[in-house]
C-alpha cells in the first residue's frame, strides 16, 4: 500500500513539475530532426575509452538509402545535470530556468525521440500529462459533485424526484459513452481557444458520468437517513439541508473517494480518446491524446515506435489507480465490518 501510494505521488509530482524534469520547451521545434529516434546515452566513446559521465553524440542526416539520422561520433556532448536553459513556470506559478538535465551548446538530447516537428517527446509527454491528468481530475470532480447532488436529492426526498432522477441515471448508464460523448461534442463549437476547449471538454466528459456516483450516493443516503442519530437530530429540529451536510454526506465520503480512483483513469482515457480523434484539446498545447493523433497515419505507426509513449505510459498509471481503488475498497470493507 505504502509503496503504491509513494509511486503514484512521485509520478504525479514529476508531471506537476514538468518544467524541471523536461529538458526542453514542449513547443520548441527542431525542423531538422523530424521523427528522430530516442537519443542513446553512451559511456564508452569511439576510441573505446570509458567515461564516468554519460554523453550523447550530435545527430546528422544518415548517408544510407533509408534516410533517418545517425550519430556523429566526432561531436560528443556531455550530459549535464541541473543546467539552466529555457525559462518556464514551475507548476505554472514560479518562474525558473533550471532543468534536471541537458546538454551544452548545439547538442540535443531526445530521450524519447521527437515527433513530426522535431519536438522533444519526453518534454511533451511531461507537459501533456499536466493537461491530461488535470482534465481527468476536473472531470472527476464535476462527476462526483453532480452525482452527490443528484444522489442526495433522490435519496433524501424520494417519491417522484427519485424515480425521475434514477430513470435518467439508468438512461445515462446504458448509453454507449463514446457515442454520447461524440454526440454532445458535436453540438459544441469545433474550434476553440485552448483554455475554453479544455474546460468544455472536461465538463462534457465529467457531466456524462454523473449517473454511477449518483446511484451509489442515493443508496447510502437512503440507508443513512433512517439511522438513529439522524432521527434524533431531526427530533431536535434539524433542517433537511443541515442533516444532509452534517450527518448524511460524511457517510458517502468513502464511496466517493473510491469512485474517484475508478473514474479518474476512465476520464483521462476519455480526454485521450477525444483528443486522439481530433475533438479534444488542440495543438500546439500538448496532451497525451493529441500526441497520439500522429498515429492515425500508418507510416508513423509502422516506423516510429516512440510515438506510442503516451498510451504506453497510461498502462502502469491505470494499474496504479486501479490498485489504489482495490486497496480502498478492501479497507472500507474491513472498516464496515
Amino acid at each position, binding site marked *: 500500500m505504502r509503496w503504491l501510494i509513494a509511486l503514484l505521488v512521485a509520478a504525479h509530482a514529476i508531471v506537476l513539475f514538468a518544467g524541471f524534469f523536461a529538458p526542453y520547451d514542449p513547443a520548441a521545434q527542431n525542423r531538422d530532426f523530424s521523427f528522430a529516434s530516442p537519443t542513446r546515452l553512451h559511456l564508452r566513446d569511439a576510441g573505446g575509452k570509458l567515461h564516468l559521465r554519460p554523453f550523447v553524440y550530435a545527430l546528422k542526416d544518415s548517408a544510407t538509402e533509408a534516410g533517418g539520422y545517425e550519430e556523429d561520433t566526432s561531436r560528443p556532448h556531455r550530459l549535464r545535470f541541473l543546467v539552466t536553459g529555457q525559462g518556464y513556470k514551475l507548476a505554472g506559478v514560479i518562474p525558473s530556468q533550471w532543468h534536471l538535465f541537458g546538454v551544452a551548446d548545439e547538442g540535443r538530447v531526445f530521450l524519447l525521440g521527437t515527433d513530426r516537428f522535431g519536438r522533444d517527446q519526453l518534454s511533451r509527454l511531461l507537459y501533456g500529462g499536466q493537461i491530461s491528468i488535470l482534465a481527468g481530475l476536473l472531470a472527476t470532480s464535476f462527476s462526483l459533485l453532480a452525482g452527490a447532488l443528484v444522489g442526495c436529492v433522490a435519496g433524501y426526498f424520494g417519491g417522484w424526484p427519485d424515480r425521475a432522477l434514477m430513470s*435518467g441515471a*439508468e*438512461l445515462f*448508464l*446504458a*448509453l*454507449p*459513452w*463514446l*457515442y*454520447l460523448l*461524440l*454526440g*454532445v*461534442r*458535436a*453540438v*459544441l*463549437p*469545433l474550434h476553440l481557444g485552448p483554455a475554453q476547449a479544455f474546460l468544455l471538454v472536461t465538463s462534457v466528459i465529467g457531466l456524462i458520468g454523473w449517473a454511477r456516483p449518483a446511484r451509489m450516493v442515493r443508496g447510502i443516503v437512503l440507508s443513512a437517513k433512517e439511522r438513529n442519530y439522524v432521527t434524533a437530530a431531526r427530533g431536535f429540529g434539524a433542517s433537511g439541508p443541515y442533516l444532509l451536510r452534517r450527518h448524511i454526506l460524511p457517510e458517502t465520503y468513502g464511496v466517493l473517494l473510491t469512485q474517484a480512483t475508478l473514474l479518474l*483513469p476512465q476520464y483521462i*482515457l476519455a480526454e*485521450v*480518446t477525444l483528443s*486522439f*480523434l*481530433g*475533438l479534444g484539446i488542440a495543438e500546439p498545447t500538448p496532451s497525451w491524446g493529441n500526441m*497520439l493523433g500522429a*498515429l*492515425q497515419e*500508418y507510416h508513423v*505507426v*509502422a516506423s516510429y*515506435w516512440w510515438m*506510442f509513449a503516451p*498510451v*504506453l505510459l*497510461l*498502462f*502502469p498509471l*491505470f*494499474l496504479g489507480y*486501479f490498485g489504489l481503488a*482495490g486497496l480502498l475498497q478492501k479497507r472500507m470493507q474491513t472498516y464496515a465490518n
Partner: protein
Amino acid sequence: MRIAAYLGKRLLRALVLLLGVSVLTFVLAELAPGNFFDDMRLNPQISPKTLAGLRQQHGLDDPLPVRYGHWLRAVARGDLGYSFAYNSPVTPLLAVRARNTLLLAIPAMLIAWALAIPLGVWSASREGRWPDRVTSSATSFLVAVPDLLLALGGLMLAVRTRWFPVGGMEAAGATGTGDLARHLVLPVTILVLSALPLLVRHVRSAMLEVLEAPFIQAARGHGIPRTELLYRHALPAAANPLTSLLGFSIATLLSGSLLVEVIMSWPGLGPLLLEAVLGRDLYVVIGSVMLSTLFLLTGMFAADVLLYTLDPRIRRPS
C-alpha cells in the same frame, strides 16, 4: 408474471428510453452554434438566397418542437432525415454502416461471453487456488490496458508483420467471405480482449455468491456431478446480475468498436459519426446516436428474454 406482460413492460420501458434519447439529442443539437450551411456562407459562389432556400428546404428555420415533430413522424415511416454532406437520405447510409458495425460487434460479443463464462465459472469454482489466482491477476492486468493501446498495438502488429490486412473491410478486387473473415480477425480480437477482463470478473463474483447458497450445498450432498452442478444449477441462479451486465457490455463494446473502427478504418458507424460531428451533419449525428441506442436496447431486451427463460424466480408474481 406472464411472459407477455413481463416482456410488454420491458418493451415499453425501452421505447420510453429511446424517446428520451431522441429528445435529449435534439435539444442538444438545438443548443449547438452553427449548422452545416454556415460554412457555405463563406463561399462566394453560393448566394445568400440559395442558402436561405436550402435552410428552408431542410426546415432549419422552424422552431424546435415543430422540427422534432416532423422528424418523429418521418422516423415512424423509416426516414431518418437527410445528410447534408452526402447529399442523400440518412437511412440507407446508416443501414450499410450499421450492418458493418454489427458484423464486428456481434461476433466480438459472442466470443467474449463464450470465453468469459467458462473462465469465470472455473475461477470461482476453485476460489483461492492457482487457477483462480492466475485468472484474477491476469484480469486485473488486462483491465488496466486502455482500448486505445490494444487498438493501436493491433494496428502496429498488422502494419509490421503483414499477417493481417491493414485496415478496411475488403481487399481491393477480392470478394467472398474468406477475405471478410481475414479482415475481421484483428478488430474482433481487440474488442474481445478489451471486453473480456471485466466480464470474467463479474461472472466470477456472481458465481461465488451463488456457490455459497444452501441449495448448492444440498445439490453437492446429493452427489450431483461437478460440471452439472456448476452449469445446470449454479449458473442460472447467477444469471440475474449477469444479464444486466449484458446490456452494459454491449454499451462498452459499441464504444470500443467506434475507436477500433476509426483506427482500423472499418467502414462502420464510428467513422461516419466522427465525420458527421466534424462536418456538423446534424441528422447523421442524431441517427447514429439513436441507432447505437437501439442496438443497446435490443441487446438489453434480448437479455431480459434470456433471464425470463433462465431464472424461474422472475416468473413468479412478486
